[in-house]
């Protein structure tokens, strides 16, 4: 119904949305029922089907403009997420009462998460920068 040998961009988008919904439904059902092994298998099969769909789509799905938009969006996301997480962790660590140990610990976890995000960003920036110089 949604798949043929040379799909257009519109039919690819329809198939992608249906595939995403199917994966979400199957994976969430598997988690609810405790069959955790089904989740990675479902995601893997979904990725393979998506790859097959991309391969059989005759239209260009991604070009230089999409990539530029993605790059800018990724940079803004990293900035916003790191600022928000750092602020929340600062508030949790400095303002929670000593009796609320779990909030203090949550603050610590969030601050380490922020450091991890910034470290991954710096490392990938260094590697990509090396590629272009």
């Amino acid at each position, binding site marked *: 119904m949604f798949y043929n040998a040379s799909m257009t961009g519109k039919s690819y988008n329809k198939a992608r949305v249906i595939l995403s919904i199917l994966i979400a439904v199957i994976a969430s059902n598997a988690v609810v029922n405790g069959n955790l092994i089904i989740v990675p298998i479902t995601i893997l099969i979904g990725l393979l089907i998506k790859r097959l769909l991309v391969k059989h789509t005759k239209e*260009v799905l991604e070009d230089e403009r999409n990539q530029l938009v993605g790059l800018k969006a990724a940079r803004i996301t990293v900035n916003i997420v790191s600022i928000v997480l750092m602020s929340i962790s600062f508030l949790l660590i400095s303002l929670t009462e000593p009796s609320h140990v779990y909030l203090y610990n949550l603050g610590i976890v969030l601050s380490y998460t922020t450091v991890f995000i910034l470290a991954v960003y710096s490392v990938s920036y260094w590697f990509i920068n090396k590629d272009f110089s």
Partner: protein
Amino acid sequence: MKNSIKMLRAKHNLTQEDLAQKVNVTRQTILAIERGKYPPSLPLALAIAKVFNTPVEEIFQ
């Protein structure tokens, strides 16, 4: 960046979709270039110039 892609498309009887297919980009990218919202990369500008058989500096001012 101003450009004469819309005029050249009309002259060569090409739709945005046709031009997009010829230079391997999406129709939205051609639309964005025509509106001056997105400056194309040098390879894309050269590919567009090749399609219209016109020097790149005449298309993009």
